[in-house]
């Protein structure tokens, strides 16, 4: 049951945060044609389909959105954005939702994704580049599945495709400085300013 009106459950700050990052004016324009869902290669695996995510956002259903598996299943293929008749950057909305979910600590459904991404960024932060082998091993250790994709690892190793030591760039200091500003707001270029 969605309760609205008076002391409604809408939280304008949150919606505007998503909107700021994803094209404010157009988010409200969604008329639920479903084209995003129709073209989404992963909609079959989602609990809330992409159009429903937008709908829930229009109604301010934050908990439902952040708690959904869908935002972590989105592969970021941008098919939805490319075809949306309302010009809504749905892929960017999904990205924003993942960022917000992590900020809010709502990552139960996406813990594998977040964990992998953290390892990835740690690697970049440390070396300036991603150390693939390190990330994969780290992931397997975190998930306590040391031999996940071991067949692939073996194959890569025999083809000389897996570096076993990290390569560090010279400008790691600069890269670390960039990391120091994590969380700074970035307005989506698609956002239309209202004035």
């Amino acid at each position, binding site marked *: 049951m969605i309760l*609205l*009106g008076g002391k409604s459950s809408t939280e304008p700050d949150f919606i505007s945060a998503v909107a700021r990052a994803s094209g404010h004016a157009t988010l409200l324009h969604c008329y639920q044609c479903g084209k995003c869902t129709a073209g989404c290669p992963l909609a079959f695996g989602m609990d809330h389909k992409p159009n429903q995510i937008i709908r829930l956002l229009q109604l301010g259903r934050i908990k439902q959105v952040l708690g959904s598996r869908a935002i972590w299943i989105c592969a970021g293929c941008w098919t939805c954005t490319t075809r949306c008749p309302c010009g809504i950057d749905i892929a960017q909305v999904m990205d924003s939702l993942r960022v917000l979910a992590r900020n809010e600590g709502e990552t139960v459904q996406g813990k594998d994704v977040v964990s992998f991404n953290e390892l990835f960024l740690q690697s970049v932060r440390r070396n300036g580049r991603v150390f693939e082998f390190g990330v994969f091993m780290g992931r397997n250790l975190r998930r306590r599945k040391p031999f996940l994709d071991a067949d692939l690892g073996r194959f890569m190793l025999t083809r000389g495709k897996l570096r076993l030591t990290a390569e560090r760039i010279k400008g790691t200091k600069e890269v670390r400085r960039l990391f120091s500003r994590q969380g700074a707001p970035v307005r989506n270029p698609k956002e239309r300013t209202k004035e």
Partner: protein
Amino acid sequence: MPRIGVFVCWCGSNIGGVLDCPAIAQEAASFPGVVFSTEYKYVCSDPGQKLIVDAIKEHRLERVVVASCSPRLHEETFRQVLRRSGLNPYFLEMANLREHCSWVHPDTPEQAQRKAVDLVRRAAAKAARLEPLFPGKIPVVRRCLVIGGGIAGIQTALDVADAGLEVLLVEREPTIGGNMVKLDKTFPTLDCSACISTPKMVAAAQHPNIKLYTYAQVEEITGYIGNFKARIRQKARFVDHAKCTGCGTCWTKCPVSVPDDFNLGLGERGAIHIPFPQAVPNKPVIDLAHCRRSTRGKCGACAKLCPAGAIDYEQKDEFIEAEVGAIVVATGYGLFPWEKVYGEYGYGRFPDVITGLMFERMVNASGPTSGKIQRPSSGKEPRTVVFIQCVGSRDEARGKEYCSRFCCMYTAKHAHQVLEKIPGSEVYVFYIDVRTFGKGYEEFYRRVQDEGAVYIRGRVSKVYQDGSKLIVKGADTLLGEQVEIAADMVVLATGAVPAAGAADVARMIGIPQDKDGFFQEAHPKLRPVETHTGGVFLAGTCQGPKDIPDTVSQASGAAAKVCGLLLKDELETNPLVSRVNEALCTGCLACQPVCPYRAIQPVTITERLPGQPPRERVVARVNEGLCQGCGACTVACRAGAIDLKGFTNKQLLAEVDALCL
């Protein structure tokens, strides 16, 4: 027996590819009366027509049979050929060998051939019995009656009057302006409704060619196209408008206070009142049912105070008889009576559940709240407003099946007005589909969403009062979840229905209504302003729900039709009408009630039979201006006195005989 010529057309391979046209022509030559028979590739072509003209001359033909395509296509073409040849154009009969034969029986050419011969024999049999027919001429009264003084009636009246024709504009309310003048702002441009309609009202009232009757009703229409007679009842106003200056003393001092119908009960007015400050005419009427002088026998305040001495409690209804050549019906729409049907929305018991039109009056600066949006229950400003669309519309079970067309847009406009006038307010709109068909409409709808209106796809199931709140139970069908809103005010988008009394108007004029009671146009696409009754046209929402631009367009369309009719010197009548053989008529008048056009009236004739004294008796007579030629009366006549020209009993029986050889 007249001399008949038969012309069989191949229509290229359309007929010639299936039927043996020379064989048909050959066989036709043996039919009674046929003195000439031939075939040709395209009889409708120039050389084909010349063939007929020449044959008429050469063979002294008196009747012509063309066996080709459907008469619905080329009957008029060939009638002109006869006219050019000096024959009466009604001496033509066609056999439909294409649509009814070659095109539908290509697989059975032998049977088709036999059928074709039969069809030509039928045509020849009828042709032998055709009589010359002559269209009559009737004069035209150059005056137009417009029934209904809303924006449609006003627009038609102005356009017709501007063309130099006289107009009688009749409105039953004390002011013209109709529903439009009650509205606040109009979508999608948000221009003020009164600002754009009151100048037109004034223009109509002041136009030298327009005679305005307000507080008046058309009670009877007789006559026919070009020559109608209208009887108009001018209801007693109890105020002599010739003396009244519209100073306003009376209506400010009237001690009576009753719910104001113009404001849909949201405000109050006196017994002597004008509907609204810009009313046209800007002079009051006394509502006798509430006048204290009438109910209690004492008061008379208005009469005492009137400086012009215009109050006349003894005034009586008056009647005006007028001749008009054309009638435009512009009686408008009313609102679906939701209080009788929608118990789940409270049957009108909850004061804060209002209709869209009430909202219009409320948000109108000259309305009962001076433009303040407030809860009728408390006078307080609502914070959360819920709009419910399609109340009465698109509800086959209890309302109307159709879409009322303008509600989506006025609801969007209301949402905009709430958000604009009440900062921080919440607006929810429950809809089934949002239909924004007009120019700039979709853009307006989007703008309202930008302003924060939350649209929820689903129909509200129930509204109930919970303390000072209204609980609205709906569903978001896009999410498949139930929705509950605690609202301060609920606005219902009640659909449009024909104006009260539309059925009486239809009966009075003799025009059909559709299944929903709207007046039926002659053709839904190609004759949208005409009716099946000659000289009667439709304008605006009486024909079906429409928005203001469409209403005004149709009104101007109706005006153009009126001008097209009334600017002629005289009208040609359709000669295919019924006629009474008065010698056979017994005067039983069984024919009269079956006539849909009331074209049959009894007349008294003086009969002089040889050797007897003249005697008077009643017979039926057909008014050829009214008769449309259906022939229903011919069957009702027991004496066989009525026949239909062009489709006579003799002709039809001959056709039957020819087909059943």
